[in-house]
């Protein structure tokens, strides 16, 4: 319980390396410490813009729950009853675009009448929710710069600029779209944060900020129910998550350590006891059984883990031309360590990978154009008054006016693209084509994994397959907020490493893997077969523990 309330430079753990996690704040539940912590969080927020609203009271209902000693931030596209849910959009925050940093005009802010299921689970587990985290508008972006609340500034300070105060560090992106969640954790404002991951929105910011980020299997944090053995009902904890692209959206967890992420994940991926029809779906059990049988052959908990039965696939397509070479160096070091623990490294090929990004953007924008149709200024969205003399004869004009005023540029662009992809003329060539690519990507993954996909009706085992895939989480380190990389096609390329696992619905965790030549954090992603979330977390944990040894020497 060490609370340090000195100057910012001291309060923020000097992050000369990505491994200094132990020094951020633990949480105490004495009232005094809560107040001190809150004040401290606000001061850290000045320099990061990670949080956009703050809890004024503790909502801890369970002081003995598994999360009772954790502070958690919630991405602002996840519904909470006690705090507004703006999705970083002028649509839901009200359209006072001129003062992006003022957060007091709560009158027009949308506040949900319910808590998301994941939030309910957090509360039930005793977590202390400190506030809502900044994000790209409706989750659309890779750098957290498309936000009515302004961009998130990465809290990381590279060892190369130790001489300047933390608040004056180099201003780089925290990644997106869950940039606020990642920055809040990395700055020590909270122990963990909920994010959402549609195409990499948890893994990318985790990588840029030097923390751990998990995107679980799609539908696994779920209340999957089969009733009468006839109806398939999938009611996952996306309940309360404002949809961007439903078939890809996952609630993800960001944390300062793999253990913290696992603790939170375990709490929110349990079944909802309020649902009397809840039954353990066979697929989930099947997936769990395969993953556990593999885990039992590994010795991962001892100080010198034995990974000799682990087969790690290195997908060749994940080392593209655009990949920064010093990132390869960092990833290679991780591989060397795993190899020294006995793991077998196997080069594999996922040939459809080059098409993944295009397919991802077609599917995601198409679904977004549909999901965001409800913000029309009638039921949802702040209505923008028409100018005098405007043509009101067609309702479409009135809708268009509000939607043009309320959405940011990136969201408008994606809605237009998605709308086009769904028009009768384009549907076959874009939307259906993208679905075909998606199927091929799934097939690619399935043919490489040793564990069969539990969702397939007749999965055939592949003894020569691999257990996990390992690749860089991003093609580069965090870009500067004032650089060219945050405009043009740059931001879209950021998702190239993360989109395939999203399309296939696979679990993936990004863990810190040392530093690149510029002194900024590098992340590696571990991707597993559907349902083997525990396995990827477990390997992430091994990487985390073994990396502590040499990250004091980042530029070696």
């Amino acid at each position, binding site marked *: 319980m060490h609370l340090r309330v000195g100057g910012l430079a001291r309060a923020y753990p000097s992050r000369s390396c990505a491994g200094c996690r132990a020094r951020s704040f633990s949480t105490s539940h004495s009232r005094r410490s809560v107040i001190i912590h809150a004040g401290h969080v606000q001061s850290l927020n000045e320099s990061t813009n990670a949080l956009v609203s703050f809890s004024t009271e503790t909502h801890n209902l369970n002081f003995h729950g598994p999360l009772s000693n954790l502070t958690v931030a919630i991405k602002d596209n*996840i*519904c909470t009853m006690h705090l507004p*849910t703006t*999705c970083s959009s002028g649509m*839901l925050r009200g359209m006072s675009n001129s003062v992006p940093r003022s957060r007091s005009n709560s009158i027009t802010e*949308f506040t*949900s*009448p*319910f808590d*998301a299921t994941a939030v309910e689970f957090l509360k039930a587990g005793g977590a202390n929710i400190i506030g809502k985290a900044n994000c790209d508008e409706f989750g659309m972006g890779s750098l957290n710069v498309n936000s009515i609340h302004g961009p998130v500034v990465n809290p990381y300070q590279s060892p190369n600029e130790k001489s300047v105060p933390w608040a004056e560090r180099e201003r780089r992106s925290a990644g997106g779209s869950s940039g606020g969640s990642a920055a809040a954790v990395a700055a020590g404002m909270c122990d963990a944060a909920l994010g959402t991951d549609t195409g990499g929105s948890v893994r990318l910011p985790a990588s840029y900020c030097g923390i751990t980020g998990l995107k679980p299997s*799609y*539908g696994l944090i779920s209340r999957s129910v089969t*009733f*009468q*053995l*006839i*109806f*398939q*009902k*999938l*009611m996952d904890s*996306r*309940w*309360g*998550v*404002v*949809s961007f*692209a*439903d*078939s890809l959206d996952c609630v993800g967890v960001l944390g300062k350590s793999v253990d913290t992420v696992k603790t939170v994940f375990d709490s929110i991926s349990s079944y909802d006891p309020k649902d009397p029809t809840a039954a353990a779906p066979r*697929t989930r059990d099947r997936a769990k059984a395969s993953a556990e049988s593999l885990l039992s052959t590994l010795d991962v908990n001892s100080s010198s883990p034995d990974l000799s039965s682990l087969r790690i696939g290195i997908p060749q397509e994940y080392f593209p031309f655009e990949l920064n070479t010093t990132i390869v160096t960092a990833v290679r070091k991780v591989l060397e360590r795993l190899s020294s623990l006995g793991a077998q490294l196997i080069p594999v090929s996922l040939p459809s990978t080059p098409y993944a990004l295009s397919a991802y953007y077609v599917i995601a924008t*198409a*679904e977004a*154009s*549909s999901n*965001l*149709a*409800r913000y*029309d200024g*009638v*039921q*949802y969205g702040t209505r923008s008054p028409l100018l005098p003399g405007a043509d009101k004869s067609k*309702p*479409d004009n009135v*809708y268009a006016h509000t939607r043009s005023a309320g959405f940011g540029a990136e969201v408008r662009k994606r809605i237009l693209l998605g*709308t086009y992809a*769904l*028009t*009768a003329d384009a*549907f*076959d060539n874009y*939307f*259906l084509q993208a*679905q*075909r690519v*998606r*199927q091929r990507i799934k097939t690619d993954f399935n043919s490489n994994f040793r564990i069969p996909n539990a*969702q397939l009706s007749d999965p055939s085992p592949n003894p020569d397959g691999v257990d996990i895939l390992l690749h860089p989480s991003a093609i580069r380190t965090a870009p500067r907020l004032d650089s060219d990389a945050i405009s043009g096609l740059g931001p879209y390329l950021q998702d190239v490493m993360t989109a395939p696992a999203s399309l296939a*619905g696979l679990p993936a965790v990004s863990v810190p893997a040392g530093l690149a030549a510029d002194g900024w954090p590098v992340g590696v992603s571990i991707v597993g077969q*559907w349902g083997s979330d525990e396995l990827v977390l477990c390997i992430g944990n091994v990487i985390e523990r073994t990396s502590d040894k040499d990250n004091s020497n980042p530029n070696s």
Partner: protein
Amino acid sequence: MLVRRCPWRSIQLHQLWCPRQIHTREAIHDKRWPGWQVIIGIEVHAQIKSRRKLFSESSTSRPGEIPNTTVSTFDSAFPGTLPTLNPKCVELAVRTALALNSKVHHQSAFDRKHYFYSDLPAGYQITQRYSPLASGGYLKLSKGDVSVGIQQIQLEQDTAKSTFDGLRRTSLIDLNRAGSGLMEIVSEPHMRSPEEAADYVRTLQAVLRCVGSSDGNMEQGSFRCDVNVSINKHGQPHGTRCEIKNLNSVKFMTVAITSEVFRHIELLESGCSVPQDTRGFDENKAETLKLRSKADSPDYRYMPDPNIPPLLLSEEYIETIRKTMPDLPDTTRVRLRNLGLSERDTDVLMAVDSGHEVGFDGELGKGAVTYFDSLAQQRDPRVVVNWMTHELIGQLTARKETFSDNPVSVEQLGELIDLVQDGKITGTSGKSLLKHIIANRSSSAPSVLARELSLEAISEDDNASTRAWCAEAIGALPEEAEAVRQGNPRVLNKLVGKVMQLSRGRADAQNARVVLEDVLRR
């Protein structure tokens, strides 16, 4: 987790765009439009009579409900809400499909249809465009030997209701209806006259009500029709069709079709072509009016709904519904006739039955046929139907009451019939007892009432009372008695009537006749 097979979807799309098979029927010559053939197809939107909405837990609303009171966060499209399919709606739609001889698909799926309108909170309607619940099938019309083909049956959400308040120049939105389940039933273009179209709608209404899947009430909006009309010269290919939207009574539908046919004829005979329009109906002018042309028709940007997994229905499930669903009118008619009921009695019973209230979630209402079936379980069906049609329904009608007001329970009428059949009370007493129960809304057992009202019959071995009444009757009607003594048997009836009157119906008429004959002929 959704697994979408894209090639399969594309095949589905392809099929959708294929020209339909042209239905061949003998040419019908209509005196109203000699030389022309009229082709009609109907799309029906029938509200599913379920207790809850299609994808949410909120109740479906009844007419007259206070606006915006049966609305969940999902119905109003709150950000972050997700749909959960209501199995009752599926069951009722499957019943409908089976009743229409449709093929229920083992796998169907849900799609989103997009458009911006204030009555559609989410900006899209969930429907089944690419992979409907059922396809194929037919409905046999009541007149002529005509079967109308069914193209497909799909589940979809109803919209909210918007009302324009002209005084305040404001649109009012009522979300009570938003998200209620609808069945869209699309017919093939197999109808050839406005009258056949009317017959199709009425027959379909009866089928839906019979299987309990919908109220089928056009006036209250739980059954809405869009009608496609085209005309062509006999032997020529089909003409361009126009769609007439939102017709809310059968009468208006026939008027609208007739007026549309004449409009097409006028256009064609003046050398113009018929543009493919979507039209409305002006009830006051009795003619259709243009809403929009084909060029203005919106692109609904259909997309598979990523939140709802495919709907999988096993053969076993479909068979269970087939076995447990209520009989169709035709089947019921045959069954009743096989029980020995006359055509007239069957007609009366079924006519009364068709007016019964449709229960929620397919629960069977208390219709006349169900009532009859319970009564006829261990009784002579012909006796039972006599009591029901002549006495029960007769007396209710005399009181200007309908069968749904019937206060007589199955147990009461059953016991009453048994009392009469066993000779415990006479038929005449039975009738007055029934009248008493209806008038007083009595729930007592008929045997108890018979005792209380002294209506118990005089048993055959209790000849003393009968003899006393007979003596009294002879005393009261000496001339008639003398006539009988002279050998005029017809006058005996008058004396028997007197005995019945004196005994207040308790005497057995047959027995009284024997006693009187015995006394007078001795």
